[in-house]
């Protein structure tokens, strides 16, 4: 189908970028100061013991050799083993990825639910108090360091008011996770029709999603406002008003749908940005995502997980751009027809 061709072209473009990522991560990792062999030889290790481990990890070979070994393993889908958790990296990443995705998607959904209406309102009444208020609040949201917002929210809503649940990760201590079908607790608990579990998972998600969401509201609101301003001034909106269509139809079906095009493209960038900023939110909310996993590995100079993480993020980025294009094609036929 046409979209398949579009997807094919986008993938072809992504391959060199991915290759670039593989090389850069490999070199960046090798430049990390720590020597994993020393770290894992344990406190009482002697030089000899550390050398043993270095050989075992294959770190004694020349850089090009190590790179070839790495690429060969990569081809076999073996991302190596994490020395911090002792598990194969691919297993760690796959168990932890849904946690990060679920958090980022909820954060994005929250941001959209607030920023889109704000953007539209600001565009419908430019220069009014709503316009300024929208701009000031969303900009304030993005001006705070994300970890600080998180800690503040925990302090106020959990520690002082007790409204929010304990920041203990994806589920409180006493409920066990649902049967893993998609890995998304919300979806899995719905599939298992376990409303209590759904509520428990949702309650744990609120604060971290709000922290992430706050961070994404500004760009979305700003882009929606600019796009809506442009569309509201366009000829076809004037025609729609001249035809006496209902104000809601003019605003939503005609104007907003067209304004969504640039917003959708922006979503791709905001999503990957949020995945990156996830690292800090996961640290604050004990969220077992891939961000904190990569951070622990980076601090411990444990190469395999860092490389695995970056590769996964790069491929998510490619898949993301693909979905954006498809989404774009669905909304705007011009792209679909001309592809």
């Amino acid at each position, binding site marked *: 189908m046409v979209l398949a061709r579009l997807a094919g072209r986008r993938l072809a473009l992504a391959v060199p970028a991915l290759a670039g990522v593989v090389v850069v991560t490999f070199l960046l990792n090798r430049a990390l*100061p720590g020597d994993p062999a020393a770290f894992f030889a344990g406190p009482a290790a002697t030089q000899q013991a550390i050398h043993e481990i270095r050989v075992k990890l294959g770190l004694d070979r020349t850089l090009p050799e190590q790179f070839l070994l790495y690429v060969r393993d990569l081809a076999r889908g073996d991302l190596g083993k994490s020395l911090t958790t002792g*598990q194969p990296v691919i297993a760690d990443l796959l168990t932890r990825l849904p946690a990060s995705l679920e958090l980022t998607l909820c954060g994005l959904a929250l941001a959209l*639910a607030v920023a889109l209406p704000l953007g539209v309102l600001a565009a419908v009444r430019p220069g009014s108090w709503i316009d300024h208020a929208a701009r000031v609040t969303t900009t304030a949201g993005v001006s705070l360091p994300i970890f600080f917002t998180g800690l503040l929210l*925990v302090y106020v809503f959990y520690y002082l008011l007790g409204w929010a649940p304990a*920041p203990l990760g994806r589920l409180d201590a006493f409920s066990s996770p649902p049967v893993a079908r998609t890995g998304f607790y919300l979806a899995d608990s719905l599939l298992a029709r376990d409303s209590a579990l759904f509520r*428990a998972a949702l309650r744990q998600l609120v604060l971290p999603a709000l922290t992430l969401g706050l961070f994404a509201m500004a760009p979305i609101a700003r882009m929606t406002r600019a796009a809506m301003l442009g569309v509201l001034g366009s000829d076809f909106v004037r025609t729609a008003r001249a035809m006496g269509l209902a104000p809601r139809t003019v605003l939503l079906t005609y104007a907003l749908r067209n304004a969504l095009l640039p917003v959708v493209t922006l979503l791709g960038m905001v999503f990957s940005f949020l995945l990156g900023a996830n690292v800090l939110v996961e*640290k604050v909310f004990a969220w077992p995502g891939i961000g904190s996993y990569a951070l622990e590995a980076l601090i411990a100079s444990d190469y395999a997980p860092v490389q695995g993480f970056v590769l996964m993020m790069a491929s998510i980025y490619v898949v993301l751009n693909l979905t954006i294009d498809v989404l774009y094609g669905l909304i705007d036929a011009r792209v679909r027809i001309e592809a």
Partner: protein
Amino acid sequence: MRHWLATLALVLLAVPGAVSAQTRTETLLVVTESGPNSMDIHGVGANRPSYQASWNLYDRLLTYGVKTLPDGSRMYDYSVLKPELAESWQVAADGASVTFKLRRDAKFHDGAPVTARDVKWSFDRAVTVGGFPTFQMKAGSLENPDQFEVVDDYTFRVKFVRKDKLTMPDVAVPVPVVINSTLAKKSATASDPWAMEWLKNNDAGGGAYKLESWKPGQETIYVRFDDWKSGPLPKIKRVLVREVPSAGNRRALLERGDADISFDLPPKDFAEMGKAGKVAVVSHPVENAFAYVGMNVKNPPFSNPKVRLAVASALPYDKIFSAAVFGRGVLLQGNPIASLTFGHDLVPTPFKTDLSKTKALMAEAGFPGGFATTLSFDQGFATTNEPAAVLVQESLAQIGIRTTIQKIPGANWRNMLLKKEMPIFLNAFGGWLNYPEYFFFWNFHGQNAVFNTSSYQNPEMDKLIDAARFESDRAKYTELVRGFAKLMVADVPRIPLYQPLLDVAMQKNVKGYQYWFHRQLDYRQIAKE
């Protein structure tokens, strides 16, 4: 749109499902900063939380007694050995070996009976895998498999290589665990004879607790092994250990009653929680351990003893003790032997902050104008080290030593220690066996082990340490300890600052906590009212 917000508000305010009271008193929720990276204490690079897993999942032949301190808190008694897996033991008349009688009714978690063959396989494994476990066994002169002999299914003999008073205590430390060898061998391979890979993620023990589930980096769940025979059956049925990286959140969890127990919080939180009284805080000086400022005695400028003495009289001991450690410890001010260890009173507090003679010392050392250098510390312990480093930096500046602070990530820290090139740094060391010569053997002996961070080599010191290790006469032993303690204070390769406390905060209904030398939680003695 409105509908969605309504459900969100409803969900937020709904009261969490009331977990039945009964399960709540039989479940213990522990919150820690980081979790185990292996279930096998012999594993490569097993971290400290892995010791907690191994201690609770596996049995050992012996364990230590218990003593109650004046303040009512309970701790292990390193002078008393008690049976665990071994019902009884008999040191041979010629003192060349010891024979253990194993319990006949002991079983592993998978129901298989525990025999001497399992013990031999486990001990052989401990002395041959290399790395930390092997070193720890060697500290008690348990060095090669020939020493271990299976007499019959329930009798196990250990032959001594030499008379070493540390051998028996070394049998009760976390390393010599008893592993279910038949189960383990099923997963052994030619390249991995000791089933290291399998045992890293699986439980082949017979200890008081079985492993229900382990999600690395998230949570570890233990459940009680009801057929455990090596001691009184624990009261806690299920233990949840949740990793919560943010210290602030861990404190909030404790204060709001959502978590039962935590032990790795910053000293300030323990000081305040102790005063507030909402949560019970039990503290105990960590035995045979202290935080210190180390200097490299090989390379100038700290190779000059006068410079080291000047530093010793410039350090702001009280300021560090109050602002960085919040008083959670015992002030040592240079005393190389920590409290609760034999010999701690032989060289009372040799140094105090006194800038008067530092100028003269620096001049005599040939540095009237002072010099510039770097002050490093392990980023993993930044909570106390960073404020301490800033205070040290400020005091050294007053005697002309200009330092730039270098925060080094955990992985790289051990690497830097091994290189022994850091001029001046903050570090800490704690030995499991509570004997002064054990501490000096690791830290000041000429063999220059990794813990001898100053790379201090003095034949005279070696003579004193080696003699003390095998000296059984009380009086002579005391003189030897006084000797090497005095020598350390004179040469001052490092300046002990304070002996840290092991603080544990728990809800008021948590009883039975016991301090152990490995500084981890032992769930077997804990109960909840």
